[in-house]
C-alpha cells in the first residue's frame, strides 16, 4: 500500500477524490466543507488533476451541474454542508431517480436556526428520504477509504445510484490524522473505469428525467426503492474487496464489545470512538455494556442490525438531531421500527446529544448509561435531550 501521512482529513479526502481520477467537480464553498473543494480546485489549477472544476454560483447549481455531467458519463463529485445541502435539496431527489452515480461528501453541520456552523446530523436527517446511498464514517482513514468505495459502488452497473459520505464537520474535517494512502495500483484494481448505464449521446438520443403521469409514477418509485435495497450485496462486496486490498474491512453495522452485553449504545459517525472509551471504562467496572455503530444508513441494514442486537435487553440510541414534535431523534425512530417484531423486544432509550458541536465526553456517555439504568421502566417514546440546562 501507499504512504502513511499525518494530514488534515479534508485534504486527504480531496486527494482520494483526485486518486479516483474524477472528471467533474462542481461545488460551492461552505464551512466546514471548504477545504475539500478548495484543495480539489488547487489540484486542478496546478495540473495535478485533469478534471473540470466548475465554481458554481450556488449549491442548487452545484447539484444541477453534477446531474448533467453524470448524465453525460463523467465521473462526478461534489461536497457540501448544512445550508448548502438545503439549497440543493430539489436536485438531490432527482439524481437517484435518474440513477446517476454522483458521489458527495456531506461535512455534517447543524441547520439554521439558530445559525450555527458546528457539527451535528440535522442536515443529513433533513434529506433522509432523498434516495441516495447514505453512510457514515468515524475517522480520517474511513473518509479516505470510503471516497474510493463510494465511486465503486455508485458506478457499479447493478447499482447506478448516488452515494453520500457523511463525515462530521470540524471533528473530522479540520483535524490532522495519520492516514494510509492507497497506491495507484490498488486504486486501479479497486475502481474500474466508469461505464454508465445510460449516457447522453447525440448519436443515440434518449430522454432522461421525463415527466411521469399518475399512471406510472408509482411504478417508477417502487423500482427506485427496489434498486436502493438491491444495492446491499454490492456494498458488502465492495467492503470485502477493500478488506482484501487494504486489510481494513468495514461492515454495514459495526460491533464493539457486544459479547455478553445486556445494554448497548448505538451511534453514527465520529462519536463512536468517544463512546468506545466510555464502554471500555464501564466494562472495567464489570458493567455488561457494548456499542453498535451504524455505518450504513440507507439502505437501512435491518438484518445486520437485528443480528448485532441479538440478546440485548436495553439500547441507548444516541441521536444528533431532533425530529421536532415527533418520537425524539430519527435514528432511535428507525431502531424502534426495526426491532418492533423482535421477541423479546429490547427497550430503547433515546439520548439526543452533541447538537451543534456541543462537546460530549466519555464521562457524559457514562452519565447517560447511569441515567438509563436508573430508569425503572422505559416508555417506548422516551427521549432525553441530554445536557440541556432546564
Amino acid at each position, binding site marked *: 500500500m501507499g504512504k502513511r501521512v499525518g494530514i488534515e482529513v479534508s485534504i486527504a479526502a480531496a486527494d482520494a477524490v483526485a486518486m479516483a481520477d474524477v472528471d467533474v467537480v462542481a461545488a460551492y464553498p461552505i464551512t466546514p466543507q471548504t477545504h475539500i473543494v478548495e484543495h480539489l480546485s488547487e489540484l486542478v489549477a496546478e495540473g495535478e488533476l485533469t478534471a473540470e472544476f466548475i465554481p458554481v454560483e450556488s449549491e442548487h447549481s452545484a447539484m444541477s451541474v453534477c446531474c448533467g455531467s453524470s448524465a453525460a458519463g463523467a465521473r462526478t463529485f461534489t461536497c457540501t454542508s448544512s445550508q448548502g445541502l438545503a439549497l440543493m435539496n430539489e436536485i438531490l431527489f432527482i439524481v437517484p431517480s*435518474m*440513477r446517476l452515480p454522483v458521489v458527495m461528501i456531506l461535512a455534517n453541520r447543524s441547520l439554521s436556526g439558530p445559525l450555527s456552523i458546528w457539527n451535528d446530523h440535522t442536515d443529513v436527517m433533513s434529506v433522509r428520504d432523498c434516495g441516495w446511498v447514505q453512510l457514515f464514517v468515524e475517522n480520517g482513514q474511513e473518509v479516505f477509504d470510503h471516497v474510493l468505495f463510494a465511486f465503486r459502488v455508485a458506478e457499479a452497473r447493478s447499482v*447506478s445510484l448516488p452515494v453520500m459520505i457523511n463525515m462530521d464537520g470540524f471533528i473530522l474535517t479540520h483535524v490532522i490524522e495519520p492516514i494510509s494512502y492507497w497506491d495507484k495500483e490498488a486504486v486501479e484494481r479497486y475502481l474500474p473505469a466508469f461505464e454508465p448505464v445510460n449516457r447522453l449521446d447525440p448519436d443515440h*438520443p434518449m*430522454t432522461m428525467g*421525463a415527466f*411521469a403521469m399518475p*399512471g*406510472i409514477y408509482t411504478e417508477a418509485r417502487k423500482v427506485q426503492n427496489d434498486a436502493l435495497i438491491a444495492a446491499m450485496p454490492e456494498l458488502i462486496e465492495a467492503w470485502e474487496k477493500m478488506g482484501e486490498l487494504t486489510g481494513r474491512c468495514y461492515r454495514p453495522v459495526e460491533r464493539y464489545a457486544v459479547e455478553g452485553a445486556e445494554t448497548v449504545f448505538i451511534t453514527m459517525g465520529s462519536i463512536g470512538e468517544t463512546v468506545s472509551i466510555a464502554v471500555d471504562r464501564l466494562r472495567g467496572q464489570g458493567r455488561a455494556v457494548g456499542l453498535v455503530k451504524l455505518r450504513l444508513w440507507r439502505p437501512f441494514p435491518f438484518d445486520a442490525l437485528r443480528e448485532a442486537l441479538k440478546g440485548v435487553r436495553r439500547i441507548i440510541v444516541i441521536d444528533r438531531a431532533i425530529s421536532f414534535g415527533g418520537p425524539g431523534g430519527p435514528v432511535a425512530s428507525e431502531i424502534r421500527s426495526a426491532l418492533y417484531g423482535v421477541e423479546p423486544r429490547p427497550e430503547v432509550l433515546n439520548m439526543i446529544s452533541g447538537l451543534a458541536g456541543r462537546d460530549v465526553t466519555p464521562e457524559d456517555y457514562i452519565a447517560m448509561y447511569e441515567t438509563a439504568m436508573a430508569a425503572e421502566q422505559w416508555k417506548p417514546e422516551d427521549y432525553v435531550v441530554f445536557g440541556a440546562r432546564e
Partner: protein
Amino acid sequence: MVESERDLRCGDLEVGCVVSQPGNARFYRTGDWRSFRPVVDRAKCIGCGVCYLLCPDMAIRRRADGTFEADLYYCKGCGICAAECFTGCIQMVPEEE
C-alpha cells in the same frame, strides 16, 4: 410501443426511467384533454394555413381539397386556430354538443 402508461409494469421501466426510443410523444393522446373542439366551415376556409402554422401542437393537417382540419387525436382544444383565423371559419364547439 404502448398506447398508455397504464400498460407498463415495473419491469418494463428502463434504468432511471429513461425513454430510449425517440419520437414516442406521437403516441401520446393529448386529444383527451380537450373540452372544446375546432369545427371548420369549409365554405369560408380560404386555405391560407395560418391555423396550421400557429397550432402549438402541430395538430392541424392539410386536406386534399386544400383546406385544413384538426387531428383530434392530438388537438387539446386551445382555440388559437379559431382566434387567429382571418375568415372566422373556425368555431370552438363544446365537446358535449
